[in-house]
């Protein structure tokens, strides 16, 4: 999958799925969606194609990172950050796998 499509896909998945959780903080949520996509997608693409790392660890790492980012950068509420990070990253990693075969 081309990197630009992976990035746009990740951003759209994150942006759309963050909105129900952080509707009032939608601007911060969009900014976080963009920046976390930029940080994560090139990294996991290179990990997927260039290393034999177990992607369960990458998946868990993405969830933990997003939990912290959502908590500290959008809204300080664990009850929102944890389910949001889990749902968003699960869908995002499925998209990534489908795209990369």
């Amino acid at each position, binding site marked *: *999958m*081309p*990197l*630009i499509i992976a*990035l746009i896909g990740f*951003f759209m998945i994150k942006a759309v799925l963050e909105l129900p959780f952080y509707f009032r*903080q939608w*601007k*911060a949520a*969009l*900014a*976080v969606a*963009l*920046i*976390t*996509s*930029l*940080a*994560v*997608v*090139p*990294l996991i*693409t*290179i990990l997927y*194609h*260039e290393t034999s790392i177990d992607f369960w660890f990458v998946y868990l790492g993405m969830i933990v990172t997003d939990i912290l*980012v959502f908590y*500290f*950068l*959008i*809204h*300080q509420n664990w009850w929102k950050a944890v389910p949001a990070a889990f749902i968003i990253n699960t869908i995002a990693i499925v998209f990534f796998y489908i*795209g*990369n*075969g």
Partner: protein
Amino acid sequence: MKPANKLFTFIGMKIIRIFFTVTLIITGVTAWADAGFSIRRRTAAAQITFEGTGNLTGYQLFRVYYSFLQDDTVLKNPFISDKEIMDDKTTIVIQNGGKRWDESDRYLHFALIKTDTAGTVTDTFTVYMKKWNYHMVINGVKDGKLQYSMKKSKAYFDYTVVTDDERDSGGRVNRWIFIASSLTGFILLIFMFLKRKKIKLA
């Protein structure tokens, strides 16, 4: 204007500016990275190989048709004109050429044919070829039916995102583009984290 409203306008402008800056970075960096290499060929052309064709005493295995279509009526036709005998050395690679391996799918039709003068077809089957490599292990023939097991493995396209070839500097450049792109994201995250109290994103 109230101070609170001024503050909100300032926050809004700041976030919109961040949004556009990051969009520009993403578009530029990834377009550049994509120009260096393409991650479009995710699966290779599928191939099928055979083992144990020597067990077919009195029979021969033929590939009888090579088709785009699933519902071919060619197998009902007693006059098979296009055929190829399968043996242990045979490898059929499904490949349409070009870049788009995903579109290279075919239905391979096989027939088990008695080596008598009439050449009676006693068994037929179809293998759908796409994304998976198949290895057919033939055990023999029972009541005119082919006894076989099929092993499949994913047809990965043998490519590397970042080439290690020293003569090609593109690989190293691409690796740095990826790392720089990812680092930019993490640095922006750290920046947002450090500035979170002033910007009041929460």
